[in-house]
């Protein structure tokens, strides 16, 4: 009994530490607002007035360049996403992937080009300051020019993604352009990939035509999911066979290469069987996961449709908070649970 009374406080301390510390994560820089976007983050097609929770900065106007949470909060204003570039104008938010909340690492693209020409609307940016030119993302597809960037999603281990982003931050845009093959090398070296979609169609790509409704791989220069595979068979999606390219405006999935849990939004609505709008969050091959109005509802906007442009949802399993518990119990109490 005395033994227990000695070890109990220590046990509680250790349990607390186990709860707070994730696997190999080091708690670093944090932002209270971005934490709200750890599970779901998105942007709208248009600006609107929120009647829901008042944003931290007190401004009820929500821009289509702001990063929004599923609970009606503004996680990052557009200027905060672009803080590294010290921009005072709103450039929109076209694609997003929240990579690390604690480290404030967000990958994204804008709707408009940088007024100072440091990046284009098709480039992949991060809040750490990386600029990966659109053309470099498309290197393995042998596509010339900037074709826009509509959706982005990183896959791979957390360590690999962080390591890649540290490297990417140190590489200038011009360096990427001088050595475009470097990207696929860095991605493979870190065991990760960048899945993305473009704004236009390139019928003369390296091996196959690529459409703006396809999900592409930067590491392998391949189509991860065609537009036809993203949508149910009942939808006439995919060119040239099924008839229509519905576009791919946002895509998110787990960090593994598991595609079944993927979520996405399209560029245009569909009114047939399994109808959806371009604001709905859809499940890969399986209809609507989140109705558009449910997504925006926490903001209590004056209209129930605002369009969904950039999309991130945490689809990986929740971190196992009590994973140290068995070790602690066994080590200090001699108990095997």
């Amino acid at each position, binding site marked *: 009994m005395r033994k227990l009374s000695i070890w109990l406080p220590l046990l509680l301390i250790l349990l607390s530490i186990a709860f707070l510390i994730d696997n190999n994560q080091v708690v670093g820089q944090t932002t209270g607002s971005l934490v709200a976007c750890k599970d779901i983050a998105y942007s709208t*097609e*248009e600006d609107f007035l929120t009647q829901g929770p008042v944003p931290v900065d007190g401004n009820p106007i929500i821009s*289509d360049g702001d990063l929004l949470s599923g609970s009606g909060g503004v996680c990052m204003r557009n200027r905060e996403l672009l803080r590294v570039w010290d921009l005072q104008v709103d450039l929109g938010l076209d694609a997003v992937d929240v990579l690390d909340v604690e480290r404030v690492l967000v990958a994204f693209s804008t709707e408009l*080009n940088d007024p100072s020409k440091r990046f284009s*609307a098709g480039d992949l940016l991060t809040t750490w300051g990386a600029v990966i030119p659109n053309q470099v993302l498309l290197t393995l597809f042998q596509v010339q*020019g900037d074709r826009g960037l509509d959706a982005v999603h990183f896959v791979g281990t957390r360590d690999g993604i962080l390591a890649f982003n540290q490297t990417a931050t140190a590489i200038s845009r011009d360096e990427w352009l001088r050595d475009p093959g470097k990207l696929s090398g860095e991605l493979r070296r870190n065991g990760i990939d960048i899945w993305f979609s473009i704004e*236009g*169609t*390139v019928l003369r790509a390296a091996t196959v035509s690529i459409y703006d409704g396809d999900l592409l791989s930067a590491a392998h220069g391949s189509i991860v999911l065609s537009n036809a595979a993203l949508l149910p068979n009942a939808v006439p999606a995919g060119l040239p066979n099924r008839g229509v390219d519905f576009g791919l405006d946002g895509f998110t999935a787990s960090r593994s290469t598991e595609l079944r849990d993927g979520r996405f939004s399209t*560029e245009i609505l569909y009114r047939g069987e399994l109808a959806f709008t371009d604001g709905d969050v859809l499940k890969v091959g399986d209809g609507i996961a989140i109705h558009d109005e449910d997504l925006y509802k926490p903001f209590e906007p004056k209209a129930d449709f605002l369009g969904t442009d950039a999309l991130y949802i945490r689809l990986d399993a929740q971190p196992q908070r009590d994973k140290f518990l068995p070790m602690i119990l066994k080590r200090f109490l001699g108990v095997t649970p």
Partner: protein
Amino acid sequence: MYRLLNLGLLFVLVAGLLTLPGVAYAQTSYPLDNCRGGAFSTEEDFMMSKSEPYDGNPYISDGDLLSPNGTLCARNADLLQKFNPAGAAAADLGLDAVDILDFTDRLVAFSTELDDIFGKFTAGDLLFTNGGIIPNTALVAPFGITYDIGLDAVQFIGTPEKLMSFAGLVLQIGPDGWGQDRLQQELKRYGIDIWFSIEGTHWTAVAAPILDGDLLAATGYVVAHNSNLLPNSVPAGLPQRGVDFGLDAVTSVRTPDPDSVIPNIYYSTEILFRGEPAFNDGDILKGGNGVVVTNEDLIRAWAPKADFLGLDALWAPVGPGTPPEDPHIQTMCGDRPVADFDGGLIPIGGGGVGLYKANLSTSPPGDPPRRPCGEYVPIDGFLPDSAVTRFRVSYRPNGAAVPAIGAASGIRTNWQLYEWHGWPINACLPTGSLVTDANGWMDASDYLDAKDGTLTGCANSGLRLAVWDTNNHQAGFGPANKDGHYVLWLEWEDGGGTLHREPVEHHLQLDNTLPTIAAYPDGLQVRLSGGGGAIVPACGEAPAGSSTFQAWGQFADLYYWNFSLILRGGAPPASFGYGPHNYWDLNDGTAGVKNTDTTGTTPDLTTVRLRDIHMTDLGASFTDCCYVLDLWVRDAAIRHTFNGRVANDNSGSSAYQANAFVTFAAAP
């Protein structure tokens, strides 16, 4: 006059957009002429499944210029010919905005979705097919915007000659010559302007924001705020109304009347709206009003696998310089424009319910009252002075297959004409006649001559293309179903004996069945206000001192409109009216009481409380006496009388209302 001009412009826009599909043919250069009736681009690529474009490839890109009649006008590469280096493979950069300035010289102003892969221009620059470039920063400079903020829609304002000349100047100046306010100076010098919208929102600390849903003028003013473009019932505009709906495409008259700018703007938004009036981001909307062409109708001739493809760029031959040449129907049910009917102006085979809906921006409630047509239905439109030998208004039941020209039924009309009678009468008398044949065909020259008096010596200005006897007052003149849903169109024969038809159709819902009130005692009841609401039977005597009674009723109509109650009696005799109480009214002044919907009382087949009546409303006439309570129930149908010469709207006539009454005695 202004209303007529607007209607004319609307018809030109819609009819121009919805011309008959032509036959695809190969050309050595792109067939821009295919778009003389209108042009647009979609948000996404698709495969056309009927016919094929001039280059034989059924793949349609969102960068191609399309006509609503299903023919391709230009590939994206055609538009970019002057910008691509010789020998370089053309990249499809999308098509975000368009204005066709001249067909003969193939002069098109446009913008792309993507920046040029060769670095010559950005997606925000305004391009011309002659190779000219106006940088985005030159367009937006007057608004204090110093960076490229995108270009989403464009419309040139000015005479064609000046616009052509200006386009030449743009090429001459080159993309780098627009420093300072050169563009604004040149626009003023030429007496022209460029209306446009941007992709982003520009917020300033000192001035109102410039929204991507605002229509801007390059000379430096806001032509129309997003809140002005959309009806009041739409929460458009920031920061006041709540949402920026964007402005994805726009087209207008080239020389707008300053007093009627917004009604002459046709546009599409970036996002849809589910309220009233609902619209999609691919529909063509009219300034300050609702949808004039749905996306489904716009793309129908392309027969895509999906019925929505979005709308990114739009041009239409709107304006007084492009009058119609072919005969067409303009109004139905009197002088009501076909475009104000649901499905009133749609491509052949298009959908609609055929109900008249009044001005979407002003009519209460948000969902405007819908009205069918009954009795005699006047149908009128445009018939040219020559080139037509005979014409008729044809019809078929909704849902029936589209027949060959000349194979459908035609509306028959018997006209009574005023003829001149000389001495000793010296007057116009209605002694002449002009009749269609059994198939509805009317001799065109006789009709026109009778109308202006050339044939008869007296003008017969009341003539219409047809007056449809929908209730079969004259056997064989009406439709098979007096309450049916029909599709109408105009057919005519030219001087060469060839039959033609309108490239559009007009849905019309008929209603010749009057409202019904349930038989006594269910149809109308007077009940005591207290005491459990006991019914006061006909000729029954209410307890003395009862001054407030409940009126209960039961009635029905497929297109119900309103009910009224009239209390009469007392000494001296007096009357007091209650209502009319329209189906869309929230209540009748007695909160929570009315119990009617679009088909009469609700629940159906149930006698419900309509409202309270107060004997004291009769004033001093409320004495120990007998009283009558009248119930009048009206439906929504628009009905005309027709005497062979003139059709008059008498929709409100009591002859078309159902009536019931109940007697009772009451005393103060």
